[in-house]
């Protein structure tokens, strides 16, 4: 089954003949050259402008500077993980609420989702920082960042789940009805398992965007990675280098997360396939 996605994209074109292969080779070489030339030009300019000087990069190899950024990374990962643990199940609940046949439930959850989908997370953080304390409601700094992350992310993941539920073939509902399952039974044993599988890639994207949202921690002075990077710029004065290093860390972490999730995804698909093979 793991080769299936490759097959799905390969099926878009015929296996090329000798002429096609030559053409593909030619375009490959030309496009590679174009990409490399662009990269080389950028690097050369960087060198000319002195941004590649060793003294501007060496600080990021110092162990105490790495530890300083590591502190921020730990804060970033912690906020992301806690937010995701709460936001994803909440998102599923909100999705079920939105498609509920009870009109009041559907109306309220819809309003909730649209509200938090529609405003920048920055403003939600400000509400927790500025508005709620006026009414005597205080949260620790960590939660002033994480609760807005949960509220915003659960609204977006609710839409992801809803789309997934909608994408399950209608025939599945009909088949479930035929074998006498109730609406709830249909949802939980037939539709949801398929829907969740469909939306897994989108959930991974939601996790990555949560990690990026945690950069708003600077507003509530929560020590996350980008905030530590900003403090570091004040010290080293190397703006471009610091932001490249910090961005690089985000890219690597998010890349590893998506890889891990893809791996899980593939394993689950395989297991599901084996399961269905056994039933036949």
């Amino acid at each position: 089954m793991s080769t299936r996605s490759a097959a799905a994209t390969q099926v878009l074109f015929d296996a090329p003949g000798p002429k096609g292969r030559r053409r593909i080779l030619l375009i490959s070489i030309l496009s590679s050259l174009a990409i490399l030339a662009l990269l080389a030009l950028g690097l050369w300019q960087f060198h000319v402008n002195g941004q590649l000087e060793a003294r501007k990069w060496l600080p990021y190899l110092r162990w105490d500077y790495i530890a300083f950024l590591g502190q921020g990374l730990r804060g970033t990962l912690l906020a992301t993980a806690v937010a995701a643990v709460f936001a994803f199940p909440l998102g599923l609940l909100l999705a079920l609420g939105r498609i509920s046949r009870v009109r009041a439930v559907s109306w309220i959850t819809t309003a909730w989702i649209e509200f938090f989908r529609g405003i920048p997370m920055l403003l939600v953080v400000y509400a927790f920082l500025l508005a709620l304390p006026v009414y005597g409601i205080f949260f620790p700094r960590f939660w002033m960042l994480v609760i807005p992350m949960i509220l915003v992310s659960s609204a977006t993941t609710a839409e992801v789940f809803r789309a997934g539920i909608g994408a399950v073939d209608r025939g599945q509902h009909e088949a479930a009805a035929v074998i006498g399952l109730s609406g709830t039974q249909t949802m939980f044993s037939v539709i949801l398992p398929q829907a969740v599988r469909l939306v897994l890639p989108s959930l991974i994207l939601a996790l990555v965007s949560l990690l990026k949202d945690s950069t708003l921690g600077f507003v509530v002075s929560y020590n996350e990675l980008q905030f530590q990077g900003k403090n570091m710029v004040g010290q080293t004065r190397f703006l471009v280098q610091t932001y490249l290093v910090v961005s690089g860390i985000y890219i690597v972490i998010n890349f590893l997360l998506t890889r891990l999730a893809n791996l899980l995804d593939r394993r689950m698909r395989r297991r599901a396939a084996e399961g269905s093979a056994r039933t036949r």
Partner: protein
Amino acid sequence: MSRTTFRPGRRAVVAAAAALPIGAALAACSSDSSDAPSLGGGDASDGGGTDTAAYDAVIAGGPVAADTDIAASAWATAIKEAGSLKRGGTTANQVFSLINPASGQVTGFDAGITQLLARYILGDGGEEKVEYLDTTVETRETMVENGTVDCVIATYSITPARLEKINFGGPYYLSGTAIQVRTEDASSITGPADLTGKKLVTQANSTGIQAITDNVKDPASVDTLADNESCVAALKQGRADAYVLDQGVLLGNSKADPEVTVVGEPFTQDPYGIGLSKQHEDALDFVNAFLGAIEEDGTWKKLYDATVGQVIEGDAPEPPTPGDLPA
């Protein structure tokens, strides 16, 4: 019975989807990450324009309040009972308040005032017991009003509009707004009069904006950027012709980078104050008494010499009189 064999597989999908974030949770350590990094081995020379050794000596020699003075102020008593001073501000501002990633130490003129105040209230070693909370220009009045921080010490200009919402201890420093240009332009731009028709840049949360409005006639544009380094980059890359900000910060920039130069003399006097809640009227008297004490025993001038004096040449100026507020 085929259904029962199929089901666990489906459940696993749901369970694994919910378990996804837990993988990330395992990757993160469980301890709180907000404590400042405490690594030994700081450099004496840092990018913040502070003489670290002299700075440490100034702070360690700061005065400590008498118990009766503390008892007379409910605000100071509460801080003493809590065992730490919560300061709103920034730790990314050269010359005034900058954290050293290697040592975790915060130094600069504002940082010094903060640590001296903590020492004054909490006694010997109190300078270590400061909790640095970041406030921005949007958040600082509210953070003071609602008690999230005990005070704000953050190049915080005293203005009549702000005085309606909060109290200001001080002024403790008179900032002069100055002009920084690319070194090759140093002969053509020498003062605010030369800025007409020029592209200007300043920090988004700074007093530079007001200084430009008051002193520069018809600039071509005024850009506001998030931090000092972005402003310097904008200047060097030609996005702006001049960078207008506090003289001390600008001098720190030209010390670190010969491509930029500060021109002319400061053209404003901008009083910096310590932001305090109106709910604690006693805090105002207490903080002004503290400022009077460090000005009288010479600590203020020594702190100036160890921080701002490292970038501005000449002797320390006379400190401003606490309580001397702009109308």
